[in-house]
């Protein structure tokens, strides 16, 4: 067999692996010399490169390793997104980790590793390679969730996520095995060709649905979501932000690739499954968020709800729903990390913000943080002229064009519900007397991160056309 080695198609992965190893060495060295670890800065450089590669090579596409790796526009778009997410997490993480006395280099090393996994996930249709990549990402994130290892809840978060993730991976792998048994292939694009025209093979269909179940776990769709609130709540806030945005985006991207090939032979069953799951996810995610007093838990349920909206876009795959999902992922990344970043910025030494009581009246002490929170939460709720409005507009529009009117109605209705709990957060920030007037510590990096994110939420809300075009472009070849 020919060794189809093509270094160009794995350029982002090479960069990430290089920085991963470099960080390991530098961290070990700086620890032995007792100096402060600089791996965070290294991470910034690496992620900036990751985000820059797609910008430079945009449109130059190729495949390598016997078709195992696809370096297409879709993968490039996602690499860009991952680079941005990585940078934002690195900007907001040090402040929190410092607050809880655990500013350790491993956090950034693991972050690089999981980004590496994510970047492989989005550039392959080979289910084996995908699964290994998924495991790289997951393993790193499990440890990130348990980063405050002396805190019970952090360990609990990691443990639950790990156990549940193990089950999900097993189900996924079993599905792959069934698909292989039915078709003799583990490459999703070949599978589609092999089953095309044949009568329904239950074993392939069953395998594909199990694979879908594995994805539903990672995107935290109902009823595969149970771990989400506990893990998001217990994990260190920057890790939570990363789980809510990065992991979810990677899983959605992977789902899109698999879905497009699996939905062709079995449209009815797959659509029925997606319909049910989207319905439950939007409903339960939003309703559960209403009663949360823990802000991280609230945002966890809100992230479940957002997965529901995006499932709506997947369902409308024929009517531009997928590009709507891509755009939504971008918009959601800025707004959601932004909301977590505000929580981090309001935290005090050894006392990170978690409960809604803790942010009472903070807007009067930190007016800029208050304003940023308004922008982020309004974007999450979909209020114009923030980016979230256009994100939702495109999702719901594609759903309606695809004929899922009642699901779109539910989506809009639940967005109304969502405004209630987002607004509640703002009411606490703005309409109460602060319990203590000591301002939180200033942090330059969090400030830069917040400025970037608020800018992009407003920018994508006022001039969204360019990025929507890119999202549509990224999916042209895929559909």
């Amino acid at each position: 067999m020919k060794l189809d080695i093509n270094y160009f198609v794995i350029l982002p992965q090479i960069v990430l692996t290089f920085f991963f190893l470099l960080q390991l060495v530098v961290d070990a060295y700086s620890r032995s010399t007792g100096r402060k670890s600089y791996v965070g800065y290294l991470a910034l450089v690496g992620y900036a490169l990751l985000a820059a590669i797609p910008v430079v090579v945009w449109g130059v596409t190729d495949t390598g390793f016997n078709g195992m790796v696809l370096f297409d526009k879709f993968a490039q778009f996602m690499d860009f997104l991952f680079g941005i997410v990585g940078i934002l997490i690195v900007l907001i993480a040090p402040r929190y980790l410092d607050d809880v006395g655990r500013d350790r280099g491993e956090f950034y090393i693991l972050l690089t590793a999981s980004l590496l996994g994510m970047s492989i996930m989005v550039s392959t249709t080979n289910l084996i390679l995908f699964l290994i990549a998924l495991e790289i990402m997951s393993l790193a994130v499990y440890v990130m969730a348990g980063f405050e290892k002396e805190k019970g809840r952090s360990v609990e978060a990691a443990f639950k996520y790990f156990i549940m993730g193990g089950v999900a991976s097993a189900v996924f792998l079993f599905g792959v095995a069934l698909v292989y048994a039915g078709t003799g292939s583990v490459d999703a694009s070949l599978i589609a060709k092999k089953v095309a025209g044949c009568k329904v093979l239950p074993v392939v269909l069953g395998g594909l649905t199990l694979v879908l179940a594995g994805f539903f776990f990672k995107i935290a769709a109902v009823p595969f979501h149970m771990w989400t609130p506990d893990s998001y709540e217990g994990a260190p806030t920057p890790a939570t932000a990363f789980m809510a945005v990065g992991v979810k985006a990677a899983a959605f991207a992977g789902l899109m690739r698999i879905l497009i090939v699996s939905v062709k032979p079995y449209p009815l069953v797959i659509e029925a499954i997606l319909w049910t799951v989207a319905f439950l996810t939007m409903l339960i995610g939003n309703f559960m968020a209403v009663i949360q007093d823990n802000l991280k838990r609230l945002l966890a349920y809100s992230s479940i709800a957002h997965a529901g909206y995006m499932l709506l876009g997947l369902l409308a795959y024929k009517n531009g729903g997928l590009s709507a999902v891509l755009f939504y992922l971008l918009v959601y990344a800025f707004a959601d990390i932004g909301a977590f970043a505000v929580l981090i910025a309001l935290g005090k030494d050894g006392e990170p913000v978690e409960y809604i009581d803790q942010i009472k009246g903070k807007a009067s002490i930190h007016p800029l943080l208050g304003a940023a929170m308004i922008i982020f939460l309004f974007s999450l709720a979909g209020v114009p002229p923030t980016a979230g409005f256009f994100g939702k507009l495109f999702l719901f529009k594609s759903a309606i064009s695809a004929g899922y009117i009642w699901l779109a109605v539910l989506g809009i209705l639940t967005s109304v519900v969502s405004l209630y709990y987002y607004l509640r957060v703002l009411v606490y920030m703005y309409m109460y007397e602060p319990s203590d007037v000591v301002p939180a510590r200033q942090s330059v990096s969090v400030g830069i991160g917040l400025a970037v994110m608020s800018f992009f939420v407003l920018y994508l809300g006022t001039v969204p056309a360019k990025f929507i075009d890119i999202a549509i472009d990224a999916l042209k070849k895929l559909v």
Partner: protein
Amino acid sequence: MNNIYYLWLIPFFPLVGFIINGLFGKKLPKPVIHWVANVAVWSSFTVAVIAFFDLLKVVPGQRILVDPVYRWIFTGGLAIDIKFLLDPLSAVMILVVTGVGALIHVYSIGYMHDDPSYYRYFAYLNLFIFSMSILVLASNIVLMFVGWEGVGLCSYLLIGFWFEDEEKAYAGRKAFITNRIGDFGFILGILLMLVIFKTLDFVEINKILIYHGETLSVTALTLIAIFLFIGATGKSAQIPLYVWLPDAMAGPTPVSALIHAATMVTAGVYMIGRLNLLYAHAPVAMAIVAAVAGATAFFAATMAITQNDIKKVLAYSTVSQLGYMFMAMGVGAFAAGIFHLMTHAFFKALLFLGSGSVIHAMSGIQDMRQMGGLKKYMPVTYWTFLTATLAISGIPPFAGFFSKDEIIWSSFASSRGGVVLWAIGVITAIITAFYMFRLVYMTFHGENRSPEEVKHHIHESPAVMTIPMVILAILSVIGGWVGVSPVIGKLFGVENSNIFEEFLHPVFAHAHIHFHHYSEATEWWFMAISVGGALLGILIAFYLYIKRTDLPRKIALKVWPLYKLLFNKYYVDEIYYYLFIHPIYLISLLFLWRFTDVYVIDGVGVNGSAKSVRFTSRILKYWQNGDAQVYIFSFVLGVVLVLGYLLLA
């Protein structure tokens, strides 16, 4: 279609004002703050006037001027511009918004004089004018929606302006949430519009409707119209979403005048006027609008009878008057509806400013039972207030008479109206006259019933407050003379006396709503009936509140159940609470929570420190009970759910 390149200045000035006051207001001295805000809004008004005269220069049939600012989105099957549109309809609206807005800015200088958050108030007020002018001038429905949400946000911020008061903060939130329920309909309407018309531009949509209106599905058009009307019931406080407006009176009184009487709440009426062709193509939707409007007009009026808070009476009156406007829209008398919108803006803003002046004088007391006899203390307020009251009661020749009478007459004469709507209109007119004069008599006439320490503080308001009131009073008198019914016009020998309708005619010309023709004598009779009704209402009020002041109590006791029903506003708030809010909360709390989050249920409402204790204990409990099993169970259940299709297939 001609271009008018300076239209963007109208929203621009208040935006600048907002930015200056919003960012630096805390450090600026008070005069600078109100000068900035006032200059901004007066500049907008000036631009609006100039634009209005530029519009008049154009031939009546082609009065559509646009100001394309920039292309917002052009992708993914969507083309949305940031583009402003000036036609007779938006010209009227923008003049009302900036004009009344400017007067209220001046008034606010006096009213808010002692408020510590002076800058915040003026910043929000400028932001409101900005959003409202976006809403009015928008040339497509998405841009309109931006304004729509913007005014909602400002309204929320201003209702909850004195947020130290928990109840007021709650009122703000109630307004926002209720509006969002309406917005849900509005968004659906937009999305359906996009699917049906493939464009969201008003001019384009009208073109499609004029040339291909018959080929479009009536069901789809009806759905769009109904969804958008749901949005309007939220913003414009119609049944079933009117509940927020009375509570919105928690905001400063000039805000009630500007936002919750004159401008924002009329946005729904304006929206229907903008899309009149769409509504004309959806008769069922129009019938629904008319029916809802009639019911709102009547019920809101009855609720106003028993209120004792001076602002609450005016709030219900606003709901009722908005009902009139929607009634006009529903029967296809679009020009009449917009006409009433304009006159109502004058006299209702004046009523609120007057009540603000009273509250100012009474050191914050709003209960009319503690007022009385204020006429001699504050003559300017009294006389302007009386003018507005006569106007709203529909007494000729005050402004309200012409607009309201035109609506009542149209509701009878239109092919989409009928006797029932007309009767509701007349009965509501009687009730309106009654409760308004009840208010005047209780506040300005009779004995002064205020507490001693308040009594010697009562004074006339300063000129900065009374001058806007006087201007609005003049407008409340003469404002109606631009839309005089031809029947009356003939009496004075004036041809084409209804200039207003003629001016708006090009906008509504294509709707083709049929009006039955009746003899002039019939029209005179109907006019006599409505004026007579208003006089009757005034007489009853005079008898009950001046002559026999003991009677109201007796009557109330006699019909106690009915009185209680009215006094509690038909228990609608309570019904909503038990029907919607409570169940949603309960479902979230009990059903879903029990399934997944059993442990927190005993902790709702417990304070923070107890929470953390409970939290630790719950982790231990949690850990050992291994609820992760439940999670895995749910996961496997999900797998069965997705695989179940295989078993059934």
